[in-house]
């Protein structure tokens, strides 16, 4: 590498790391956030607070409720004896659901009749409500099988035998943590690049840079390298934490992972520099960074599947580098993908990277106003 590009890179690193606060801002938050988010971001429910409204004193009712008390998924918070009390608990969010057993529960069961159990669920967060309802029906199904076997009820003619591939216990952490690796890498790349040109423009030093013998390509490389290097180092740290701390299995090859990381950083750094080069002030640069960052995260399939989006929005996601990187991360971590399976993801990333970097270099000299 020519010495003068190296000089430019060193200058960029100094601008980035000289300030103590910005040095800290680059290193501490991503690591803290990975740990906090790794625990926080999960669709699995634990300790679901529920209230019991039991009008039956029989043994079967006790037996039924013991099944709920016996799992760590549910946590009893209250016993109520009227609908109004139950409603108050749900309203104030002290209970997510109420189990209501009518006065004839045990009698019905002993008479070989179906006994209804009513669950009332707080649907304000409909996803949580749906998952909780699934858990409840699993417990009820367990009770039904046991009761049917013990008391000579007919077998149902068919049973479901469900198996989950790749993630047998359906731990959503395995799905989410590789996603967070992508999220934080993106944030770091945006932090390093999105204000770097705008800041120099505001200070007037960018004009000085443009009158030096540097060609736009060299300036671009000098501006892009810190983002790539910092991103690679932090990405490595983040992957290490995911594997060593959260014990997410890393089944695929490191080569496939790093190839993906490099291509992804190229495109993220390219977008960041493009925003920065287009902005007249740092305020505009920051706005641009958010206008990219937020949709890039939401439309990546990180928390909500792309397949659920309407077709027009699904097409939009093809422009989003995060989309490809998440497929690579999850493929390599959980499904053991190698390099050869992932070219359909690498190539769009490389294309986005080249296009955005070329635009950024062009914008260095041709800004709109």
């Amino acid at each position, binding site marked *: 590498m020519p010495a003068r590009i190296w000089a430019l890179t060193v200058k960029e690193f100094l601008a980035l790391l000289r300030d103590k606060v910005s040095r800290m801002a680059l290193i501490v938050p991503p690591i803290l956030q990975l740990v906090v988010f790794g625990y926080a971001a999960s669709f699995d429910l634990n300790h679901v607070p529920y209230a019991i409204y039991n009008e039956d004193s029989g043994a079967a009712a006790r037996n039924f409720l013991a099944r709920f008390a016996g799992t760590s998924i549910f946590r009893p918070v209250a016993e109520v004896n009227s609908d109004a009390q139950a409603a108050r608990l749900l*309203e104030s969010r002290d209970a997510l659901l109420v189990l209501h057993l009518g006065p004839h529960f045990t009698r019905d069961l002993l008479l070989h009749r*179906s006994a209804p159990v009513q669950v009332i669920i707080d649907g304000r967060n409909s996803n949580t409500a749906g998952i909780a*309802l699934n858990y409840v029906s699993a417990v009820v199904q367990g009770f039904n099988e046991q009761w049917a076997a013990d008391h000579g009820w007919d077998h149902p003619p068919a*049973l479901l035998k469900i198996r989950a591939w790749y993630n047998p216990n359906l731990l959503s952490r395995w799905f989410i943590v590789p996603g967070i690796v992508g999220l934080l890498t993106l*944030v770091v790349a945006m*932090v390093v690049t999105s204000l770097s040109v705008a800041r120099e423009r*505001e200070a007037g030093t960018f004009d000085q840079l443009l009158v030096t013998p540097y060609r736009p390509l060299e300036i671009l490389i000098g501006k892009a390298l810190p983002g790539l290097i910092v991103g690679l180092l932090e990405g490595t740290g983040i992957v290490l934490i995911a594997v060593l701390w959260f014990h997410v299995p890393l089944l695929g090859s490191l080569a496939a992972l790093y190839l993906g990381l490099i291509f992804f950083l190229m495109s993220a750094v390219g977008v960041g520099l493009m925003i920065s080069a287009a902005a007249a002030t740092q305020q505009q640069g920051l706005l641009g960074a958010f206008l990219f960052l*937020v949709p890039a995260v939401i439309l990546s399939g990180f928390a909500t599947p792309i397949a659920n989006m309407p077709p027009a929005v699904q097409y939009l996601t093809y422009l989003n580098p995060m989309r490809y990187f998440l497929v690579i991360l999850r493929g390599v971590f959980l499904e053991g993908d190698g390099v050869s399976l992932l070219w359909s993801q690498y190539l769009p990333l490389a294309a986005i990277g080249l296009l955005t970097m070329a635009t950024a270099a062009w914008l260095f000299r041709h800004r709109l106003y």
Partner: protein
Amino acid sequence: MNTRLVGLMRKEVLQIVRDPSAIAIAFVLPVVLLLIFGYGVSLDAKHVPVGVVVDAPTPQTQAFVAGMRESPYFDVREYGGIAAAREAMQERRINGIVWLRGDFSRRALTAGDAPVGVAVNGVDANDARILEGYVQGVWVQWLAREARLRGGRLALPVELQSRIWYNPALRSRDYLVPGLIAVVMTLIGALLTALVVAREWERGTYEALMATPVSMREILLGKVLPYFVLGMGGMALSVAMALWLFHVPLRGSALVLFGSAALFLLAALGMGLLISTAAKSQFVAGLIAIIVTFLPAFILSGFIFDIRSMPEPIQVITHVIAARYFVAILQTVFLAGNVWSVILPNGAALLVMALFFLGIVARLSRKRLD
């Protein structure tokens, strides 16, 4: 109001008008984000591609497959053998397999324990669980149908009757859009003010301000009020979109909604000002704003991930995220109504956070140059 304060606010407003990016933050950002979120984010899986393998077709298996075809949740693809279906699942062309083996009907009619083999791709655990629930629904309907054909009723010891309050159709958009308003408002509040003090430090105009007779309190008020008005404008726009574009019901009162939004916005603006005052450089303030605003509000606010299921220490951490209180109020006011047992404690927490941030900013801002 005294004329000095009016003068300061006039100056701030002129600055906003002349760099249109502040107006863009207040009005373009919420529109773009709500459009993308509102249309793009959904946890309701429909037309999930599922492979079906039937080894020996009989009336029983046909009824089962027909049940799956009628369901809007599945896009059924039939495969001739299990090997072909497995291959399709490995290539991610289908998300699940339902396998009815050759002896399915015989065992269903005699022993009564015919297995329906279901395999789901568990990489996205949440999605997989939703899919399992849908298959279970088809299975229960099939059991009921078979029981009817034999002249009886489906006899399960306990029959679950579920009632879902506030959102009976479980439309995920109805809870995501109110939560999004909190995320968007976090961004607006912090972005509007994160750079304003640092910018003046950098350009030296803060020194000039200090040399004038205006008091520090007036300088801060002059910074907060114009952006507060802008932010509330953004909030009104977001609520209007939620109601009339996404048809989210508003069961509580608009007064409570905007009252809590005002408290939240003060907290968010206060946080932005604190970042700006402490950093004194736009670059550093920008870095911090990117890191501390969006992702925490997205992940730790209870907007999408349930706070009560997080481990205890993480739940404690969520208490410092202002968006957490605002999300609770928004979801309740939109979907449940004016539930004071939710609104009052969360509103009080927002008030405390607003006072805390603005108080620290006032303490940090003295007429000194160090």
